[in-house]
């Protein structure tokens, strides 16, 4: 068609007309075609566009086709040309010549620019539903409209045509149905209510296809499978909706059963195309069964079918079966059925040649793991880890660490597992994993002795991973005394063992070991001189690394000057870590999605630092009657009708809830919301809410009467959230006293992604209630509605005030009016720990005053609440009674409501 010698005839000048006044249509087409060819070979083209546009108005198909192709491949946003192009398209659409209409529609579908949407979004629906439009044009029009809807949904008007489009599912021509199903599926995802009738039509169409004999559909039968692609599309459309009404549901169940039955029939052809097409439909049917998650019978049948595929000779099928079973494992109906395949799956780990198949097998093992098989699965994963591909090792390490922790009944098993993990794949054990094992050992005293013994033994290996040295150093530093009674692990032997690794380690590890040594000085006075000698050596005291040098100097000095008592206090055993969600899990999520939960992890770390730190004790004594706090009315939602703050839900008009009676009703508060709310009274950062789909994290800062809160919404799934709309709801009362400002967030949240919303807060006057955060979004086909209380509380606007004992009592007396004092006596809900109590009072916002109260067991605090209108001085005193496990809390402020509210908030904390 384009022999190379014709290139010589190509004009060198930038336009076609120079030297050859009138090129005929054929030549014009030929040269434009050549230009296109040159472009496709990878060279830039910067002329010829005009000639291509001229070709569009030709009456010859070939010339027009090349013109359109040139435009489609080399889209140019040159506005003048766009106008000309649109003009030509308009003429072709009006031409009533199906070939030309087809070309024009394909061009719009390929370019899909906003200008084209503006010009044609109104026209195409008419062509689509017009009675006299040819079938092939309808097909193109349906998909053309789909493209415009994807690029510019705002420009595609919904209207009468939508109901007629739904009826295309009944069309005689299966090609039209195929194209229309794609369009309807996309539209239905955004406007489920409007396209609800498509469900029953899709079910009838599907039922006719699956029950037809293999020759009924003639052209649309592919290797004896009737209309496989259309079946897949219809099954996808049904996944936009929940299980339909009973009548339709019965027919759908029959269809799904027929599909499952056909999978058991002997194949009609040995060709792989036959089995692929058949199984494409089968896998989509299984997806729908899982999506509905309501028919135990079908779920178990699906699982058995996939079980057969696990041993199929086709790698593709084994891969897909593993992938699909992963989702089945999370359904309560089929979890047990999935578990029966554990042997086959572990075998796949050893025999599969394709790493992606092995990875699916790991995923499935992780998904099917529960208490009954955790030991077996963890053992299998560990043994696979020895030979696993480098690319997936870190993920396996995280999964093993999570499963070992989650299902540990016996913590010695947990410790063994993690140490094995470090031994086998030390390089892939991230900090989160070894931090976590230390946290768990410190929090559980039943495992400490075992852990010390085990790490001691593990460290005796001639070569051990640096992570093991870290874990070993930390654990022996804390609990080495538990095994020191055994002469084989006497203090000196422990020290020598650790020190033999010292010189091979990196700086951070050496720093950690130096801390272990100073802990040894406290634990084992008999090795003190040995350790002092080590610290005193030039390689430590004069180390080039400033951190190591400083630790050596300080520790040496500490061990020399401090008395045994001071040493014992300074180097006391670490207090338990606060219980919290495993940071390993967060890490795994992060691996799965590029930008999740990092901030939250940091926030958590800050929080643990808060609790472990904190200044010295304080004194006091007091009296009075208790004022029970009316925490039932905390929300105040009952009294005043909720009104949204900031913009109303953005896509509210489109977001119609199919499943609940009142579309935009606010969900009741999520379970656990109150507890979470209370946790945030004394801190500003952390995870506010978490379920299977969504995680909400907070980070906030307050200064005087202003504050700013960052809300992080993390999508924990791999599927997009659509119409994602968070709304802040305040009662009228609250709105008068607390001003909140925020911007709407992007309505789509990609799988694994996190979006952030900033709320600017101003405290106008003191307030009691808390705002409610309502989140509505669409996940898969289902509508989600979550409400949580947002922890913006009065105490956030506290500024601490330091004062001497004298001042304090003077002010205390000044506030002696009965309304100014509120007192509450309550039972301790948490262990009565002095340090934690102090940290909480400081977290609450007031200053913690020392040596004020005559009784050193009591706590005294002072601060000022800043609001826009006024400042309110606050004094507080907390008296613990250890015998009775009770507290008495007294608040004195210049304003009654403030005393009341602060007392309620703080009482919940202990």
């Amino acid at each position, binding site marked *: *068609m384009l022999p190379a010698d014709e290139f010589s005839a190509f004009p060198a000048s930038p336009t076609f007309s120079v030297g050859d006044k009138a090129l005929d249509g054929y030549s014009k087409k030929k040269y434009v075609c050549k230009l296109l060819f040159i472009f*496709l*070979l*990878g*060279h830039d083209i910067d002329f010829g566009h005009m000639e291509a546009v001229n070709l569009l108005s030709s009456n010859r*198909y*070939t010339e027009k*086709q*090349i013109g359109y*192709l040139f435009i489609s491949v080399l889209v140019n946003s040159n506005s003048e040309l766009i106008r000309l192009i649109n003009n030509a398209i308009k003429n072709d659409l009006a031409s009533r010549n199906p*070939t030309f209409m087809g070309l024009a529609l*394909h061009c719009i*579908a*390929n370019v*899909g620019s906003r200008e084209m949407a503006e010009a044609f979004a109104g026209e195409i629906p008419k062509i689509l539903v017009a009675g006299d439009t040819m079938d*092939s044009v309808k*097909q*193109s029009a349906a*998909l*053309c409209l*789909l*493209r415009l809807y*994807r690029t510019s*949904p705002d420009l595609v008007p919904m209207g009468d045509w939508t109901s007629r489009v739904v009826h295309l599912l009944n069309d005689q021509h*299966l*090609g039209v149905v*195929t*194209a229309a199903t*794609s369009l309807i*599926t*996309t539209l239905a*995802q955004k406007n489920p209510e409007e396209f609800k009738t498509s469900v029953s039509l899709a079910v009838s169409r599907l039922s006719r296809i699956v029950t037809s004999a293999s020759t009924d559909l003639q*052209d*649309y039968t*592919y290797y004896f499978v009737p209309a*496989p*692609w259309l079946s*897949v*599309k219809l099954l*996808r459309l049904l996944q936009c909706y929940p299980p339909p009404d009973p009548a339709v549901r019965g027919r759908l169940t029959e269809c799904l059963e027929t599909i499952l039955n056909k999978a058991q029939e002997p194949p009609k052809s040995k060709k792989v*195309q036959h089995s*692929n*097409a058949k*199984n*494409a439909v089968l*896998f*989509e049917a299984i997806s729908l069964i899982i999506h509905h998650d309501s028919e135990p019978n079908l779920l178990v049948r699906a699982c058995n079918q996939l079980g057969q595929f696990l041993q199929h000779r086709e*790698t*593709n099928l084994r*891969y*897909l079966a593993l992938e699909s079973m992963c989702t089945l494992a999370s359904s309560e109906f089929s979890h047990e059925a999935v578990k029966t395949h554990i042997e086959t799956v572990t075998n796949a780990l050893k025999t599969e*040649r*394709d790493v*992606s*198949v092995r990875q699916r097998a790991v995923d499935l093992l992780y998904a099917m793991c529960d208490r009954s098989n955790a030991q077996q699965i963890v053992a299998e994963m560990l043994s696979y880890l020895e030979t696993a591909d480098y690319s997936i090792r870190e993920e396996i390490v995280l999964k093993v660490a999570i499963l070992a922790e989650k299902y540990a009944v016996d913590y010695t098993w947990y410790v063994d597992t993690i140490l094995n993990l470090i031994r086998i794949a030390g390089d892939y054990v991230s900090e989160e994993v070894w931090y976590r094992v230390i946290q768990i050992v410190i929090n559980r005293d039943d495992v400490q002795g075992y852990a010390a013994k085990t790490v001691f033994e593990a460290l005796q290996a001639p070569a051990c991973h640096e992570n093991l040295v870290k874990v070993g150093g930390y654990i022996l530093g804390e609990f080495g005394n538990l095994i020191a009674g055994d002469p084989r692990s006497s203090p000196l032997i422990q020290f020598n063992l650790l020190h033999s690794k010292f010189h091979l380690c990196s700086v951070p590890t050496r720093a950690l070991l130096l801390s272990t040594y100073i802990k040894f000085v406290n634990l084992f006075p008999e090795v003190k001189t040995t350790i002092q000698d080590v610290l005193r050596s030039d390689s430590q005291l004069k180390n080039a690394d400033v951190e190591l040098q400083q630790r050596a100097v300080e520790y040496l000095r500490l061990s020399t000057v401090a008395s045994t008592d001071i040493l014992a206090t300074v180097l006391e055993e670490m207090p338990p870590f606060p219980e919290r969600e495993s940071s390993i899990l967060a890490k795994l999520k992060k691996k799965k999605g590029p930008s999740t939960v990092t901030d939250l992890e940091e926030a958590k770390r800050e929080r643990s630092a808060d609790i472990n730190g904190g200044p010295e004790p304080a004194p006091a004594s007091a009296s009075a009657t208790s004022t029970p706090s009316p925490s039932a009315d905390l929300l105040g939602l009952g009294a005043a009708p909720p009104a949204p703050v900031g913009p109303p839900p953005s896509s509210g008009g489109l977001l119609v809830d199919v499943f609940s009676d009142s579309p935009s009703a606010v969900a009741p508060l999520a379970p656990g919301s109150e507890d979470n709310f209370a946790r945030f009274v004394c801190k500003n950062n952390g995870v506010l809410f978490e379920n299977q789909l969504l995680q909400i994290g907070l980070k906030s800062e307050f200064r005087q009467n202003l504050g700013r809160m960052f809300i992080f919404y993390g999508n924990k799934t*791999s*599927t*997009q959230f659509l119409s994602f709309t968070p709304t802040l709801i305040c009662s009228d009362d609250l709105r008068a006293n607390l001003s909140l400002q925020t911007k709407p967030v992007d309505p*789509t949240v*990609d799988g694994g992604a996190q979006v952030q919303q900033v709320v600017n807060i101003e405290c106008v006057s003191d307030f009691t209630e808390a705002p409610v955060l309502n989140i509505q979004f669409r996940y898969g086909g289902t509508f989600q509605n979550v409400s949580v209380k947002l922890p913006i509380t009065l105490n956030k606007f506290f500024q601490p005030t330091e004062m001497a004992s004298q001042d304090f009592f003077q002010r205390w007396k000044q506030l002696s009016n009965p309304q100014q004092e509120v007192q509450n006596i309550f039972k301790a809900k948490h262990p009565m720990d002095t340090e934690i109590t102090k940290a909480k009072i400081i977290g609450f916002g007031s200053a913690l005053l020392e040596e004020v109260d005559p009784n050193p067991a009591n706590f005294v605090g002072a601060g000022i609440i800043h609001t826009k209108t006024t400042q309110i001085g606050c004094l507080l005193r907390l008296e613990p009674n250890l015998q009775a496990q009770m507290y008495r809390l007294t608040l004195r402020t210049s304003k009654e409501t403030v005393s009341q509210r602060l007392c309620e908030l703080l009482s919940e904390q202990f």
Partner: protein
Amino acid sequence: MIPLGTNAYTTPVRAGHCATPLVFIDLCSSLLREIRFILIQNRAGKTRLAKWYMQFDDDEKQKLIEEVHAVVTVRDAKHTNFVEFRNFKIIYRRYAGLYFCICVDVNDNNLAYLEAIHNFVEVLNEYFHNVCELDLVFNFYKVYTVVDEMFLAGEIRETSQTKVLKQLLMLQSLE
């Protein structure tokens, strides 16, 4: 099934276009499931057809082409026909020296697209009477027409080989 000739025709791959480091191309910006692109490449990495269903600039396209070539050509018959690719997956099938690749969403139906490739190849084979690589090179404009008949706007448009071929022959008669 397709006898593909040796590669007499070498394509200069867009040299000098990749100087700027590319940031992560956000393939998920589009709203819903669809084909992101279709590529036909030979074993040497020469592109024989590239059909894009999303907007990319030239550098991005080149980068994607190279990455797809790199992930697909290292696989053998024991491997699956699916490869994870960024946040997406490539469904591919090899015919003699040509790789037919479709990039779709991770949740899409693998086997349906795998057979869509085969259906497409059977149509090409029928239309060009034993198609070979050079047919795709020299009749590129016809190949685009075939693609548009079978896939439009990133969706499967027509699956009946009879109907597609009838339409193609009708169009050919207009030439």
